[in-house]
């Protein structure tokens, strides 16, 4: 065997070069975890793939459905195995941030493109923990055709609850017993909150106590009880199957003409409905404020234990400010906070998409301040309202008893949490 020739040596060195090259630059790994659906998953994965290739990162893209997401995330965090980027929900963000599971992002992400309102909405106790991936606002979705039948062309932005009841009553007369003007919202915390704010109260105070008294609840339950008696809203046994899912909603089931949702859900609703849908603002209390505010539909946070926080933060920034990133994610997670991003998307949107952006802009003009953050136990209280409201609807407790029950239970839950 002769000694290797120079040519052979150079050839061998050339072959070995890539190996050395890779060794010299270790690839950072990032894990990104979110909840979604096939459309969102595809968009997000494309974004992560492109970004990963361009920035020499290995990004592991993990996604699940909403219910399973929190179980798995809780397990992973408890096991010390949290992903670097985690999608967050407004309420859960407070729980996670207050328990030191999230990284404070103020230094890494100044976010000059966001309005201070949008930045603040991701703050817990003054520090930024979540970057809003898109805003939404409470929206009343309605069947355009049915409303036209009773002479309503569109929902006025200063509609009062009384007018709303009147319109719903007219609709109910069209097909009594089978179709109603409105879904039963006595059990929905988000509508209750808006109503309270519109009256000048709030769901929670800054120090985590209820911002309402039992009498408020009684008026609320009574309002809906009267609508139920007048058969403007479906009876208890029809309404109770709605546990908050789109497919359980009365509009989807073809039972009501209006329902109370979030603005970014209208796309999902339209997909399941043959009739044309549109969105408008919630009704307000006469003489009161709109009761509505812009809130993050969902946010992206970084784990406090992430091994590559700067990289993670840079990726989050890409998602919300980089034109390619914004275009990839689209309107799917809500209306982007940065005005530049909105302008970028507007020309390519379909009608529903444009409606969403216009709606969010409209609400922001009439919006109230962001309410105090939900305290611990808020999730339980949301379930409590549904339970008690259903009790009242089924006639198991009186309006007055139900109201005081809800109020005292709320105090218990808050105290215990």
């Amino acid at each position, binding site marked *: 065997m002769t000694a290797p020739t120079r040519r052979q040596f150079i050839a061998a060195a050339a072959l070995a070069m890539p190996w050395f090259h890779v060794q010299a630059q270790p690839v950072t790994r990032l894990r990104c975890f979110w909840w979604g659906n096939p459309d969102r998953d595809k968009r997000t994965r494309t974004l992560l793939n492109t970004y990963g290739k361009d920035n020499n990162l290995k990004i592991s*893209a993990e996604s699940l459905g909403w219910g399973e997401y929190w179980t798995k995330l809780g397990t992973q965090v408890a096991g010390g195995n949290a992903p670097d980027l985690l999608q967050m929900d407004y309420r859960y963000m407070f729980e996670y941030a207050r328990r030191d599971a999230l990284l404070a992002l103020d230094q890494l992400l100044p976010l000059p493109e966001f309005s201070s309102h949008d930045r603040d909405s991701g703050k817990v106790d003054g520090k930024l923990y979540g970057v809003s991936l898109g805003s939404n606002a409470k929206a009343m979705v309605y069947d355009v055709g049915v409303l036209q039948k009773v002479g309503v062309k569109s929902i006025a932005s200063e509609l009062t609850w009384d007018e709303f009841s009147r319109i719903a009553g007219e609709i109910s007369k069209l097909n009594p017993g089978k179709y109603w003007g409105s879904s039963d919202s006595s059990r929905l915390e988000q509508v209750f909150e808006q109503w309270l704010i519109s009256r000048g109260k709030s769901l929670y105070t800054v120090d985590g106590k209820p911002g309402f008294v039992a009498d408020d609840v009684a008026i609320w339950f009574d309002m809906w009880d009267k609508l139920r008696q007048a058969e403007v809203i479906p009876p208890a046994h029809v309404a109770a199957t709605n546990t908050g899912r789109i497919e359980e909603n009365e509009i989807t089931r073809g039972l009501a003409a209006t329902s109370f949702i979030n603005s970014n*859900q209208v796309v999902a609703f339209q997909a399941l409905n043959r009739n044309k849908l549109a969105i408008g603002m919630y009704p307000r209390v006469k003489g009161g404020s709109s009761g509505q505010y812009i809130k993050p539909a969902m946010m992206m946070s970084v784990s406090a234990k992430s091994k590559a926080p700067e990289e993670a933060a840079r990726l989050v920034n890409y998602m919300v400010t980089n034109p390619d990133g914004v275009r990839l994610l689209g309107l799917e997670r809500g209306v982007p906070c940065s005005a530049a991003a909105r302008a970028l998307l507007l020309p390519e949107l379909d009608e529903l998409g444009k409606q969403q952006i216009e709606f969010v802009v409209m609400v922001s003009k009439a919006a109230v301040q962001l309410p105090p953050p939900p305290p611990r136990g808020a999730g339980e209280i949301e379930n409590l309202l549904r339970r008690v409201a259903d009790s009242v609807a089924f006639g198991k407790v009186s309006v007055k008893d139900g109201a005081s029950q809800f109020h005292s239970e709320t105090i218990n839950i808050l105290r215990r949490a």
Partner: protein
Amino acid sequence: MIRAKTLLTHAALIGATFVMLYPLLWMAASSFKPESIIFTDLSIWPKRFDLSNYLSGWHALQESFTVFFLNSTLIAVLVVIGNCLACSITAFAFARLQFRGRRVWFIVMLGTLMLPYHVTLIPQYVLFQQLGWIDTFLPLVVPKFLAADAFFIFLMVQFFRAIPRELDEAAVLDGCNPWRIYWKIMLPLSLPVLATTAIFSFLWTWNDFLGPLVYLNDASLYTVPLALRAFVDAAGQSAWGQLFAMSTLAVLPIFLFFLFFQRLIIEGVAFSGMKR
């Protein structure tokens, strides 16, 4: 001559079958319907047979369903083997062997059946994480080879106890050691219960959702039930048509597995007095 009784029995069975299967028929029918009417239309005969949900659903997620079906099958088959081997050995010990502490261990074994899954979930997750087994199939498969499924141990114990001891004693007189008794006598006589174990193992592993949820991170490792959940977003836009299409397809492998193995329950045992 067809007796009235037979006719009646058949009529009852056919009626019962239709009622039993209506939900499945609805699910299959829905997979052919456009999404906008799925929640308002209860009929099981769609107006048109639209295969688009199947085609798009197969590739809708990050990996195609080929990957998910393969993963599910691999895990399920391994679990079947593990359960049949390990649980029968353990059941043999409890049912046929005498040793100190047998009763205590039996009670402990039964005890492991009674704890709800969600509570040992976190400690087990931590354990597997220390072992470095997260994001692999190992947490789902290895415990089965160590007889983790007390259900099957208990099932087999009950079946073994129904087999007369004379067989064992004849074998002992012939000079057989316990292993041979197990391998040459008990197992062959236990085809019905082994087939039952195989069917249930396959079915439950196939439908198992919580284990894969927690232990598998990378989508290329997902099993079918886990993948199916990705179609439904409670607050956003779900892909119902595709969900129903893929759910219908997901039932097929387990149905076929069942069809094949159930014959073993019936063909059963070739032994005088027990032959059919």
